[in-house]
């Protein structure tokens, strides 16, 4: 059987597996604890075999690595595990800042990311939106990335699905508004410092700014009580800090991808942002502290499993490296 045929069979098997899970099974597939432990044992055996082969100088093929990562990512979705999750100080600070806001406070939420970063940022955005609606915070949505406001719409829908009563309770234009995307990166923030109206003459639906009850009396950042920025890069948290926080004294917290979060720590440590949610773990911690368990908590198990596989592969690679070094190869 040639490689092309194997690839086709693997692809068909994966697609078939998902179709069966989605349309054939009466309820979501879930392994019993025994099966889960057996699978973990089998994975451990596979790793021992890989270690032995690598020590023999036979590095495993890339596709085997891909398969292992794929399995490690996929299987936890069907397993029953309850791993302990500790809420980090920076996530707690974000939550505390939100908790300190009285009902009716105006929160500016800038969605500065697009679908590739959604697996990390969408869960925290979903949890925030539900929290805001349930606690009567008025949310003003905007985006410095073209697809950001659409991601925000998905979060609003997710909040309504998680708590159907919110669909009746919150009203567009009164409890929240989506001002849409505006081109110009940090210069949009500069312009908003002068006046929101000049940057967003209408909302996302084309409604004139002055016709929207929630924002018609909002002139600039002086009328905003708090800001939360979901960011995957530039323009994002750094630009908001440099312009919104430093120049216009905006009080802000941020939700970032795991890759971006380390670069934001200097601003957190200096007190320029009050809190930070970093990556999937930040999202899961935020879900935990707000009591709105969602996608991040589920995904985090999958991510943990993939991290273990990566660590295992690195250790195996290094064992072989030192053995080769010792053997003078």
């Amino acid at each position, binding site marked *: 059987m040639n490689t092309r045929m194997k690839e086709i069979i693997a692809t068909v098997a994966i697609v078939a597996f998902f179709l069966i899970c989605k349309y054939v099974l009466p309820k979501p597939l879930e392994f019993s604890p025994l099966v889960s432990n057996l699978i973990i044992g089998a994975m451990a055996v596979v790793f021992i075999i890989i270690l032995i082969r690598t020590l023999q100088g036979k590095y495993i093929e890339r596709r085997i690595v891909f398969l292992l990562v794929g399995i490690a990512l996929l299987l936890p979705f069907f397993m029953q595990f309850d791993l302990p999750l500790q809420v980090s100080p920076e996530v707690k600070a974000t939550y505390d800042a939100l908790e300190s806001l009285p009902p009716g406070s105006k929160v500016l939420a800038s969605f500065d990311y697009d679908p590739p970063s959604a697996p990390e940022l969408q869960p925290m955005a979903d949890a925030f939106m539900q929290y805001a609606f349930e606690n009567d915070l008025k949310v003003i949505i905007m985006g410095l990335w073209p697809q950001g406001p659409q991601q925000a719409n998905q979060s609003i829908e997710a909040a309504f699905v998680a708590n159907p009563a919110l669909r009746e309770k919150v009203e567009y234009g009164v409890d929240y508004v989506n001002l849409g995307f505006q081109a110009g990166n940090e210069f949009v923030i500069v312009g908003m410092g002068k006046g929101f109206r000049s940057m967003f003459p209408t909302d996302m639906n084309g409604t004139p700014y002055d016709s929207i009850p929630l924002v018609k009396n909002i002139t600039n950042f002086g009328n905003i009580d708090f800001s939360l920025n979901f960011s995957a890069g530039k323009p994002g948290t750094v630009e908001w800090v440099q312009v919104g926080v430093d120049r216009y004294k905006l009080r802000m917290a941020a939700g970032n991808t795991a890759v971006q979060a380390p670069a934001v720590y200097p601003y957190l440590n200096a007190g320029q942002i009050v809190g930070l949610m*970093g990556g999937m773990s930040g999202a899961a911690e935020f879900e935990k502290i707000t009591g709105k368990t969602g996608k991040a908590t589920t995904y985090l198990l999958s991510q943990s499993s993939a991290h273990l596989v990566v660590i295992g592969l690195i250790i195996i690679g290094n064992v072989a490296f030192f053995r080769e070094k010792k053997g003078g190869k």
Partner: protein
Amino acid sequence: MKRLIPVLITSIVGTVLVFSVFFPMAETWGEDFSLFFDIIAVFAFFLGGGNLVRVHLIKVLNKKGDWKFSIVTLIAFAITLTAGLFKFGSVDIAASVTAEGTWMQTIFNNIIAPLSSTMYALLAFFVASASYRAFRAKNREATILLIAAFIILLGRTPLGMFMTGWIPEWFSIAQIPNLAVWIMNGPNLAGQRAILIGVGLGVVAMSLRLILGMDRTYLGSDHD
């Protein structure tokens, strides 16, 4: 003249923006120039779209390598542009192009979002493969990096607490999640600050060179 005018524009804009920070009377000039940026940014979308069509059209016409993929790009571009411009699926022309039920939103939800996420998710596979083959403790620095990577990988997931949660409270710094927090707030913070200060100084130097017309590389060569 072809080079002098752009250099002059750069110098004037740069100087005004610097002055607008330090002199209140020039503050509004800086804000006005910022608005010019917004206008130019909008034109960049047109140029970007035009350039995309030009590059892929040439590729298809000359049947260069992987030209079939360019056909897919052009078709996708045309469909998305048409769906957005004519607001297909929208209740009326004044309604939002991204409202539920519009073609644009359908394309976003069912094509753009999953495809983009898939592309990004592939990184996990390549990172794992590269780590297995290349992440080696070859020297002291690489070993420190490796240990820090392990701590962050475990500390940023519940695994860290699962593995070291038994460590008593008086020695809780040894718990992996706390070590991860220490790495982020200690070594990482110091490194990031050094980078930020370095970048800041570099930006000042580069800006001065641009304002003074000493650096003209952004204009391209004379043959362009």
